[in-house]
Every structure is written in structure tokens, then in C-alpha cells.
């Protein structure tokens, strides 16, 4: 295949003639500096050219480097990047790099030279860089095939393939035998094997067109091809980054994709819904949910207080949307133009910000997605309940207020005998008592009663709890043999000790017990102890340390009880007589002292009614919330970020199309302050109307999904660094057919599946392999391994365990999800029957690993995975041999095999063929020694199960 490169030659015509004095100045003061300090990175002799900038010719600096601007503006040193970099005025571009700044006199000479108009006698020189320009193949209009939608035939495809084969002296393989073909097609369109009955029926009557129609009509097709598309749009159900919290309401987007593809929704419509479903389908959930595409990627949600970090995080969040959009629909890497003009494709940095501006109003998050009728109905159901709730709460508030006013007067009369509790240590002494058990029963904390005397927060902490015997020893210490119990208010499932009460008796103030409910600490001593005093501490540091933002609440109201048998408890001390911890606490005490029985009863009755109403409100079905993102008009216009740095805003950039396609595709440019929804809709229309990239990229994906590799085998990169098409005419033909079919995939599938190219055998041929080992020219159907989901689904299906219903809904999990500030996902050792659904319904958290799926290259969805990897590792073997899931499936498969002919039945179910005599003999030997399950386990590990012809 011939590769064609194109070059941009930055040819500048020299217009100004330099004066002899100027040239002399250059030779004496400038050239030596450039040679000594710059040429090692910026000349034709450079070992590696840096920043695509040549300084060994006039044309070099006139063209400039990655900045896209001339490095020198004659006469204007302050605007010349070269001068600014040596003056260290450009962050991260200080020149010469990693070396001391040039001497002031040297810099002054260069400034003078630029002021003089930068006279430079160095003509010629190398300035071209290998890269694409607007003549690049993928940016051209589609070839015109005059294709007609009514002319339903696939001869076109075979002609293109055959012509290329003939050039190499090759030809197609003979047709595949019917068993291989139905296996191939069923996996291709459903990701599952055919049943033995389906195989037999097809072998009897190999009506391929009928088979294709049957397969395309099934919801299984939507699941299989929906999954392909989810790969392309980097769909993942956790936010990634540090917190990686799980997202439980993004599955409606997954179901939307599956449904849309099953229904053969025109793909241009699908793209518009992805980018602007909320704009064109407001209050139409089925359309609105499409725009979840924008927020299906990872993003950083950590509560960063640093202003620069916040700006960078926002920029990275929008970059994900630009990257996903350009890769999925256009096959371009517009994201490579974020910091500088694209190095290889004709995409200036401005283009990046033109596209970015479309997404400025989008933020990640969930919101209600419901029809107008549903919203009205919901409001009507709630209204009477809320009216009643408001009335009850007003009555409660009035009563509370009256009580609190009285308490404010009464508080002055309260008298206390002891100091308030102290976070650094509160002691309670009592007459010597013998105790085997001691418990600290907490009734309130220092953070209670704030604002109102009835408000309770709870959830305090203790770093240490000490119990002293008559000799002054702390007998509470774990090192003394004491055991401790107490509920905690937080858990970290992967670190069981966390937050536990044992920190109260470890003799150190470092870690704290997070006090849960009931708030009771119970100590059991190793033997009965004669005790006289306790001391409880909440502080971690010394009194001099400012802990105002560190410490939790301290217990304020409590009882200390002891017991000899753990049955009968005696109270030996309480907080009685202590000063209140806070003014709120004082009010609460006063209120408690003066409230009447009637008032208490009335408040309790009101609270009961309020709780009942709240429960009723809770039972009104909520409007569905979905992770579809939120939208708001941006406050600022989009600006270019110089060097990709959001702290260095450049010129204002208006929402607009890519300039490079302006001669091919109708361009748009909106005002810089255009409504954000309009921006996304304009972008969506530009992508879907007369845009040759969109059709080519999608047609290529369809081809890849059928054959394993696309005509371009870098499916989301049609730029310079991507691959060239093996069959450029065929690609354009398919793209044209796609458009002619109204952007419906099923018609295109039919053309491909009914072709000779697709239906030929996968058999190996020396001549083909010698010339084209990867079968890219399609002298045979390329054999392939099953993908991750197919491997798991196949085991479930063949074992008779796969649950095909319900289709969709919340996903299942093959990991345990643990949440403690950040999320942790650990794979499950047992996969219960509730997980026996198709793998496409697995809730795929980012940066998680699960058995079978991860082993077989299920992608981590940090990025789009337009083409799955295909690796062979020992870990796959360990999983399939030893994970309980495979053993369970082997057992289930064994159970469904008939007593007679078990071996043949298994081969028919798994491999769609009869076993050979040798295979039967070997199998029967294994079965007689070790049973059917051993045999089934071996077959589930067999190569034949997961490789297709």
C-alpha cells in the first residue's frame, strides 16, 4: 500500500532588505549567541528538534514553532516569543532550558537586534515538518458513487475487496461451512453462541438472509452493538480520579444506547441527542438522556480550595468532553491542540477552544429527567402533604419559640457546682468500688443544642478513656488486659480497626473512637478492679495547640456505671452539677428544668404527626433522577489558554466549527455569548450534516465490528498519526451507503453480512499469510478471540444460567464497593445467581478489576476504547481454572447434559459440532475417572470455546 505524505512548507518571501549595519550587528552580536545557545535544539543539526522551531534560518523563526506564531516580530521585542523566553517572561518556556539565564548584555543585544527589524541574511534552511494539511485524505469530500438506496446488493463490497486481492495475486477463500457461519454471525451480532437447534436448522436450510434478519431483530443485537458504542464513548459508572465514587444513575444512558441501536435509530439523530438531547428534547426523557454522553467520562470532584488547581480541574473536565466528542464522531484528536497547534493535523489551538466553548455550560451531576405530565402529577401528589407539613411545623415552631423564650429567662437562675467538661480531660471521682465492668453512657455532646435547645447532632469522639484504681494505675489500658466495646459512627470496610473504641484504651491520643449509636463505651477488665476515678479525653494535641478544626465533639451529659457481673449496673458518677459546655447547652438545661408535662406531650404528639406526614411524602414516588449533567449559561466567554494553561487566558474564542473543513462542510460561527444549548446544537448539526469525517468514521467502525479491524485500524484517529485506509474507495462507498440508508446501521450490516467477503471461510492459506499475515486484505475471514463479555456470557449461556430478562435497569456488580472518603472496589470471590445477567449490564466502575472481564481485556474506561486489546496472559488461565464462577458454570453445564451422549451434547452446545472419535474417547476417560464436571471445566478452558473461525 502506498503511503502519501503531505508537507506544509512555511515559505515566506523576504521583502525587506536589511542594511549593512544591521547585518554586521547580526554577525557580530547575534549569530554567535544563536549558535552557542540555541542551535543544539533549534537547527537542522539538532539531535532532536525541540518545539518544531528552527533558529538556523530566517524562515525558521518567521514560521515559528509549536506556538504557531513567528518567534520574532521584527521591531517588537516585547511581543517576540524568542525574546520573552530568554528574558524568562514565559513560564515553562524559560530559555535556554535548565541553564542559567543568558547574560544581561547578551539579552540586550538580541533585543536591540529585534528592534532593528531583526536583519537576518540566512536564506533557505529547513522549515518543513511532516504533518497533514487540509489535503489530507480523511478531510476530503466523499467520493461520489451515485449509490441508490433501492439497489440492495452487496456486490459493491466484494468488488472493492476482490480488486485489492487481485493486485496481490490473491483471491477469496471458499465460503465458510454453515456451522462456522452461523457461529460467527451469532457471536458477531449477539455476542452469544447459537443453540444446537438453531445450528441444525440452519445447516438443513442455510438461508443466510433469513438468519441475518432474525439476528438483527433480536434485543441481543442491541446489547452487543450497544456495548461496542459504549466503548467508543468512554462510558463508565464512577467518576474516577481520587474519590472514584460510584454513579448509580447513569445506567439509563446505557439502556438508551442499547434501545436506540436495537430500534435502528438514525445515527445522525443519535449524535445530535448525545450532544444536545436536552436542547431538542426538553421534558422528553427518551431524548434528553442521550446528552448524558457529555458527562459519562471521568472527572475530578475533589473539594480543592486552591484557585489554580480549580481552574485546571475545570479545564481538564471540559477537555474530556472535547476529546470524547472529537474522537467518537470525527475521528480527530482535537485534544492534541489544547496547548499548541496540533503537531500533525491541521488543527490550530483556536479550533480546540472553538469546540470547547460548546461545552462551557456543562457540569457533571444528576437532575430530574421527566416528562411534563409526570412533573405535574408529581407536584399534585405532593401538594396537600406539603401544605399539612408546613402547618404542623409552624405550630411546632411557635411552641418551641415560646418555650425557648421562657428558658432564656430561666437560664440566669441555674446554679452549678463543678467545671464544664474539658476536651483535654474530664475527671469523675467516686468512692472506691469493685468492678469487673464499667460503662460510659453518653447522653449529649458539645455540638448538641446549638442554635436551638432541641437540636441534636451527636457523633462525638474520644481519644482516650482512663480508669484508675486505688493505687493510681490506669486499668483501662488494653495492655492491662482490658477489653472494649462500643458502636462507631463510621466504618472502613477494608480496614476493620478504623474508628474503633480500642483507640480509647491504647494509651495514645493519636487516633479517636468515632462514637456511634448507642453512644456507650463498655470496658471489661481482666479481673475485678478496685477503682476510684475515670478521665475521658477528646483532645489529640496539647492545650497550646489550636485544634479548632480538628477535634470532634466531646461528651457533655453522661453516666458512669459499674457492674461486677455485667447484669446489674450501678451508677457511680454523672455530669450532674457541671457548668454547661456551651450557651446552647445552658438553654437546653433550663428548658428541661421548666418544661411542663403537657408541653412535652404536645410536642411529642406534633412530632409524631410530622413524622407521619414525612413518611407519606417519602412514599410518593420521586421523579427519576439521572446522571445527565447540568447546564448553565457560562459567565465568561471562552478564551484561548496560552500553552494550555487556564491561568494564561488569551483572545476570546467564539463557538465555531473547525476551520480546516470549511471548504467541505458548511461552517458555523456563533457570537461568543451565544446560549450554551445553541452552541452544542450547532456543533451537533455541523458534525452530522455533510461532514465527510462523521460518515467515514462511523462506516469504518461498523466494518471493524464485523471484521475485527477497520479499513482504518485506528478507528478514532483519522489524522496523520493514524493509519491509512487499506481500501479507501470501499470506505467512501460504505460511508455513502450509510448516508443513503438514512444513517441506519441495520441496512449497512445487511450489505456487509451478505457479502462474499464476510461469508468466506477463515481457513489459513500459505499464500495469503505470506503476503498479508493479519488478513487485512480479507483473503479469508479473520479469525478472532471472543471479547471479555462474550467469554462470560458464553459460559452463562451454555451452562443454561444466563438470565436475559430483565433487559436493562440498574447494573449488577462483580466487586464489593466500599466507601470511606474514597471508593475502593474489590473483586468478588463468588458470583451469585443475581449476577447471571449479560455482562453489558455490569456496573463498570473505573479503576476496578473484576474476574473474567478484566482478564480478557475489558477496557478501563478512563479513555475511549474504540478498539479492544487482545492479549493472552497467564492470569486468564488462573482465573478460568480457579475462580469459583467457572467451577459453578462447569457444574451447571454438567447438570444439563443428558446421561447418554453427554460428550456429544457438550460439543454441540459449546463448539457447534460433533466430537471426533479421539475426543470422545479422551473425554469418556476423563469422565469415568473424575466426573462430568471435570470434563465441562476443561471444555470451558478450551481454546475452541473462545476462538472463532
Amino acid at each position, binding site marked *: 500500500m502506498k503511503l502519501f505524505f503531505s508537507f506544509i512548507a512555511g515559505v515566506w518571501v523576504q521583502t525587506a532588505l536589511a542594511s549593512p549595519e544591521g547585518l554586521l550587528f547580526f554577525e557580530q552580536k547575534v549569530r554567535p549567541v544563536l549558535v552557542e545557545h540555541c542551535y543544539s535544539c533549534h537547527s537542522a543539526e539538532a539531535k*532532536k528538534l525541540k518545539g518544531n522551531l528552527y533558529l538556523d534560518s530566517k524562515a525558521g523563526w518567521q514560521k515559528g514553532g509549536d506556538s504557531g506564531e513567528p518567534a520574532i516580530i521584527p521591531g517588537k521585542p516585547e511581543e517576540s516569543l524568542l525574546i520573552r523566553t530568554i528574558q524568562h517572561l514565559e513560564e515553562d518556556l524559560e530559555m535556554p532550558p535548565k541553564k542559567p539565564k543568558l547574560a544581561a548584555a547578551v539579552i540586550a543585544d538580541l533585543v536591540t537586534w529585534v528592534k532593528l527589524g531583526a536583519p537576518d541574511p540566512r536564506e533557505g534552511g529547513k522549515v518543513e515538518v511532516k504533518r497533514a494539511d487540509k489535503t489530507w485524505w480523511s478531510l476530503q469530500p466523499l467520493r461520489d458513487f451515485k449509490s441508490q438506496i433501492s439497489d440492495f446488493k452487496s456486490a459493491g463490497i466484494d468488488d472493492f475487496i476482490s480488486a485489492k486481492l487481485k493486485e496481490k495475486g490473491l483471491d477469496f477463500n471458499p465460503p465458510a461451512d454453515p456451522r462456522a457461519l452461523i457461529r460467527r454471525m451469532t457471536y458477531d451480532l449477539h455476542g452469544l453462541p447459537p443453540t444446537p437447534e438453531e445450528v441444525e436448522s440452519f445447516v438443513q436450510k442455510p438461508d443466510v438472509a433469513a438468519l441475518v434478519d432474525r439476528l438483527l431483530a433480536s434485543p441481543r443485537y442491541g446489547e452487543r452493538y450497544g456495548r461496542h458504542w459504549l466503548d467508543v464513548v468512554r462510558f463508565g459508572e464512577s467518576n*474516577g*480520579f*481520587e*474519590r*472514584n465514587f460510584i454513579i448509580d444513575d447513569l445506567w439509563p444512558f446505557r439502556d438508551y444506547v442499547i434501545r436506540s441501536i436495537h430500534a435502528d435509530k438514525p445515527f445522525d439523530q443519535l449524535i445530535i441527542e448525545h450532544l444536545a438531547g436536552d436542547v431538542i428534547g426538553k421534558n422528553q426523557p427518551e431524548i434528553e438522556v442521550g446528552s448524558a454522553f457529555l458527562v459519562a467520562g471521568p472527572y*475530578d470532584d475533589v473539594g*480543592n*480550595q*486552591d484557585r489554580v*488547581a480549580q481552574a485546571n480541574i475545570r479545564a481538564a473536565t471540559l477537555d474530556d468532553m472535547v476529546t470524547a466528542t472529537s474522537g467518537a464522531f470525527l475521528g*480527530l*484528536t482535537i485534544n*492534541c491542540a489544547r496547548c499548541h497547534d496540533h503537531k500533525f493535523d491541521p488543527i490550530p489551538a483556536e479550533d480546540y477552544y472553538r469546540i470547547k466553548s460548546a461545552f462551557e455550560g456543562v457540569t457533571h451531576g444528576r437532575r430530574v429527567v421527566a416528562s411534563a405530565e409526570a412533573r405535574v402529577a408529581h407536584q399534585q401528589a405532593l401538594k396537600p402533604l406539603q401544605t399539612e407539613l408546613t402547618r404542623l411545623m409552624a405550630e411546632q415552631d411557635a411552641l418551641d419559640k415560646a418555650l425557648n423564650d421562657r428558658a432564656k429567662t430561666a437560664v440566669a437562675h441555674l446554679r452549678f457546682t463543678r467545671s464544664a467538661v474539658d476536651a483535654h480531660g474530664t475527671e469523675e471521682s467516686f468512692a472506691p468500688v469493685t468492678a469487673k465492668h464499667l460503662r460510659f453512657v453518653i447522653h449529649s455532646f458539645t455540638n448538641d443544642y446549638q442554635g436551638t435547645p432541641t437540636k441534636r447532632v451527636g457523633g462525638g469522639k474520644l481519644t482516650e478513656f482512663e480508669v484508675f484504681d486505688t493505687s493510681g494505675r490506669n486499668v483501662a489500658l488494653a495492655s492491662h488486659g482490658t477489653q472494649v466495646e462500643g458502636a462507631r459512627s463510621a466504618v*472502613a470496610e*477494608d480496614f476493620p480497626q478504623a474508628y474503633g473504641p480500642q483507640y480509647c484504651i491504647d494509651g495514645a491520643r*493519636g*487516633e479517636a473512637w468515632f462514637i456511634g449509636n448507642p453512644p456507650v463505651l463498655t470496658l471489661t477488665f481482666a479481673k475485678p478492679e478496685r477503682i476510684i476515678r475515670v478521665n475521658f479525653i477528646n483532645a489529640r*494535641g496539647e492545650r497550646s495547640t*489550636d*485544634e479548632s*478544626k480538628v477535634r470532634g465533639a466531646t461528651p457533655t451529659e453522661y453516666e458512669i456505671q459499674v457492674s461486677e457481673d455485667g447484669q446489674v449496673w450501678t451508677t457511680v458518677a454523672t455530669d450532674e452539677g457541671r457548668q454547661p459546655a456551651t450557651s446552647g447547652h445552658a438553654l437546653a438545661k433550663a428548658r428541661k428544668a421548666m418544661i411542663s408535662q403537657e408541653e412535652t406531650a404536645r410536642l411529642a404528639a406534633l412530632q409524631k404527626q410530622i413524622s407521619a406526614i414525612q413518611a407519606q411524602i417519602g412514599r410518593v414516588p420521586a421523579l427519576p433522577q439521572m446522571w445527565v449533567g447540568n447546564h448553565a449559561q457560562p459567565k465568561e466567554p471562552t478564551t484561548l489558554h496560552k500553552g494550555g494553561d487556564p491561568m494564561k487566558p488569551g483572545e476570546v474564542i467564539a463557538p465555531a466549527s473547525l476551520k480546516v473543513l470549511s471548504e467541505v462542510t458548511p461552517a458555523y460561527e456563533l457570537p461568543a455569548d451565544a446560549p450554551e444549548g445553541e452552541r452544542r446544537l450547532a456543533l451537533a448539526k455541523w458534525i452530522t450534516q455533510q461532514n465527510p469525517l462523521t460518515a467515514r468514521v462511523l462506516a469504518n467502525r461498523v466494518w471493524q465490528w464485523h471484521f475485527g479491524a477497520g479499513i482504518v485500524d*485506528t478507528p*478514532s484517529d483519522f489524522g496523520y498519526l493514524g493509519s491509512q485506509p487499506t481500501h479507501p474507495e470501499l470506505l467512501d462507498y460504505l460511508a455513502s451507503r450509510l448516508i443513503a440508508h438514512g444513517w441506519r446501521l441495520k441496512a449497512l450490516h445487511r450489505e456487509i453480512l451478505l457479502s462474499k467477503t464476510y461469508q468466506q471461510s477463515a481457513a*489459513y492459506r500459505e499464500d495469503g499469510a505470506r503476503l498479508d499475515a*493479519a488478513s487485512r486484505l480479507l483473503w479469508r475471514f479473520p*479469525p478472532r478471540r471472543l471479547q471479555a463479555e462474550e467469554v462470560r456470557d458464553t459460559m452463562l449461556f451454555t451452562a443454561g444460567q444466563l438470565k436475559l430478562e430483565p433487559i436493562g435497569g440498574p447494573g449488577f456488580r462483580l466487586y464489593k464497593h466500599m466507601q470511606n*472518603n*474514597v471508593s*475502593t472496589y474489590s473483586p468478588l470471590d463468588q458470583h451469585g445467581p443475581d449476577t447471571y445477567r449479560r455482562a453489558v449490564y455490569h456496573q463498570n466502575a473505573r*479503576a*476496578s478489576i473484576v474476574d473474567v472481564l478484566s482478564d480478557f481485556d475489558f477496557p*478501563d474506561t*478512563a*479513555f475511549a476504547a474504540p478498539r479492544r486489546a*487482545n*492479549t*493472552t*496472559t*497467564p*492470569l486468564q488461565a*488462573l*482465573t478460568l*481454572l*480457579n475462580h*469459583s464462577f467457572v467451577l459453578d458454570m462447569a457444574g451447571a453445564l454438567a447438570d444439563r447434559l443428558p446421561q447418554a451422549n453427554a460428550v456429544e451434547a457438550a460439543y454441540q452446545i459449546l463448539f457447534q459440532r460433533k466430537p*471426533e472419535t*479421539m475426543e470422545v474417547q*479422551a473425554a469418556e476417560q*476423563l469422565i469415568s*475417572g*473424575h466426573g462430568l464436571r*471435570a470434563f465441562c*471445566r*476443561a471444555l470451558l478452558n*478450551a*481454546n*475452541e470455546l473462545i*476462538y472463532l*473461525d
Partner: protein
Amino acid sequence: MDFSRRDFLSHMTTGLTGVALSRLWAAEHRQQSHFHPKARQVLQIFCPGGASHVDLWDHKPLLEKHHGMPLPGAPEVSFQGKNGNLMKSPWAFQAAGQSGKMISSLLPHLAHHVDDMAFIHSMTSRTNTHGPGCIAMNSCFTREGFPSAGSWVSYALGSLNDNLPTYVAIQDLRGEPPNGKANWSNGFLPAQHQAVTMSAQQALRNLVRPQAIAESEETATRDFLQRINLRHAQSHPGHHELQARMAAYEMAAKMQLTAPEVSDLSKEPQHVHDLYGTQDANGLKAAYARNCLLARRFLEQGVRYVSLYCASRASAVDGLLNWDAHKTLKADYERHGPIFDQPTAALLTDLKQRGMLNDVLIIWCTEFGRMPTHQEGTSGRDHNPDAFTTWMMGAGVKGGVSHGATDDFGRRAAVDVTTVYDFYATVLHLLGLDHEKLTYYHNGAKRRLTDVHGHVLNSILA
């Protein structure tokens, strides 16, 4: 060096011809350096949480002197908010070794090794957040999806054994580091280059034959599997993936034999256990000590890249799970220091005594440093991406030197400012790899470990 062939091989094994089954796996993995390597293996020790440079490695006399005074310049808002005045380290620094390097008295055992260490005091990070910081310290990128350095090394150099993984990540008892598995992810490199997680507490996943299956059944099942796979391969000439998968099953069987042996620490003599502290009363220290010992045993068996974690993720468990001392620095590091110090020092001693430092490059990492000030309302320190310390020692590294420096208080890197790109350019250099030539095509770009940056730190090379 032709890496495009490597791209091809690792992407799809189709196209190999005539390679013996058992060697096929190793053949794909035995690669070559760009130039003569100084190191063959890497031991990475990672203290997640942002281990404080000014409390461990970077002595700042002026910080002591100006304790309680404002940091010169405008008051700063960092990751968690406002900061208070300068706060000296709760631990005195002491001169150690021939080099007289000043080291925190919190690390008395590690102080014995300073003459073998090359400190990099001028490290900077592009992020002030743990998760992105940790993966940046492993992959040079702050967003996930990129291959970790261990994966790049596995991809570039392959395996040194045929019965253990090439790249092992040893997790702390307390759980995963921030951003979890992304720290040892293969990113877009083929899956065989990801780290396999194993620790003294957690065996290699799915390593053990199910209890329900007797050994005789296992043998018979594998024999049958081998027969039907051979038969299938014979009917599919030229389909080398089939042979690769059979070879992978062979290697899995070898791993099943070797991995438990390597993980069996009971074979180590008592004095070795004592050296590491594997039976210490402090359960977290004992657990980490066992992982240190396990790391040595992996390196002995030719594991190419071992990542050893001391502490785990950011947590609401204040200061307990990792080095993220926002609230009470003293209490927190009095917990972490002893867990880290003796076992790590023992590992260094042990590797040195066995002569393994000729082959093994040791790198100590954390994601960023901490502020020289205390956080408002706390006695802890906030994140500081503008300055932190890392160190290297072992194969190819000059000992007893320091590269770069921070300003008077440790607020910012000031001399020879260094990035994670420089750090890994140096690591690759020591492994005989040119960081600008080690590339892999992904989604429109020829990706490098060091992105488009990085300079080898020549001053620390032996």
C-alpha cells in the same frame, strides 16, 4: 531500536512463526535496552499521602528559627484552605553517615543508609490532590488511563523469569493507595504489563486450585485440555494465538508452584525476621515488615519491578491510613515513622548484604510534600505540590549526594527544580532506556512515559 515490531507483537501474537510453546511467552518478553543498563530491576517504595519532606528528609534550619512567624509573602490558600504560621518539625534533625546528611530523628534506622542514597530535594508535582498526584508519581500523568512506570519497564524489557509476574505491586495491609489500581495499571499498554497485586496478607488472585478439585482431577483435566487444544491447534495452522494461550496455561502452572514458595516467609531464619521486625507487637509495622521481606524475595526470583506501598488511601480515619497529616502531624507521624523506618532500613540492609544493589535500583516516592506552615486551626500541614523529596539508591546511583534544594523554609523547590519526568527519565536511563525513544501509539499520539518532557538527572548517576 525498532519498537514498532514490539507494538505489533504485543497487540496481537498472530504472525509469530515456529516458536516452541514453552519459550513463546518468554520470547515475546525478552527485550533489549537502548544502551548498556546499570540496573536490571527496580524496587519502588511508595509512601502515599504526601509524606512531609520538611519532617523526614529536608532539613530547614530557618524553619526552626522562624517557628510561629508568618511565611513571607501573601497568605496562601492551598488544597484544604487557609494556612497559619510557619511550624517547625516536631522532630530534631541529626547528622548521619560519612556524608553528614541531616535526617529526621523520626527515622533512626534509615539514617544508617544516607551514604548510599541520592536525595532529590527539588521535586515538584503538577497537582495538589492525592489521587492524581499518586498516579502522576507512577505514570507521569495526573489523569488515569496512562501506563505506570512499571508497565512501561515490563513492556520495554520484559520478564527475567518464567514462573512469576514481571511486575508486582505489594499493597499495604491498610488498603489501596489513592486512586487505587490506576497506580499500577497498564493503561493502554497490553494487559500483560499490568502489575499483579500480591502481599504477605493477600495471595495472588485465583492462584490456588479450588478445594473441591483433587490433585488427580486437576492433572487429568489439564491433560485432557492439552490434548483437545493440540488437536484444535493442528486444525488451525498459522494461528499462533492458540499456541500462545497454551503456553500461558503452562506458565500459570509454574506460577502456581513458585508463587506460594516465594510467599512462604517461614523459611527465613529468625535473625532475618528480627532484622525486619516481622513479629513486632505493632501489627501495622509487622505487616509492612513482612511485605518488605516479600519484596526482597520477589527481587531475588527475578521479578523486574516491585512496587511496595507503606500506607494506603486518603481517608476520613484521621491520619491513620496514610501520610496525609492535615490535623495532627506529631501524633500521625509518630504512628507512621516507626511502621516505615525499621522494616525499610532492614530491606535496604538485606539487599546490600546480598550484593543485590548491583542489579536493583531503589526509588522512594511520595506524591507531593507538605507546607512548612500549619493548617489554620490544626497542628497539621496541608499539601504542597511545589516542593518534595524523593530518593534513589542502588544500581547506578551515586550515594551520599543531594540534587536540588528548596527555599529557606521548604515552601518551594528553588535550585535545580525537578519534575517527575526528570525522575523517570533517570530511572529509564539507569535501565538502559532512552525515555524519548520508548514509545507506544495510542488514540492519536505516540505516547511516552515522560510525556514530552524530562531530562536525566546526571548529578546522581554513579
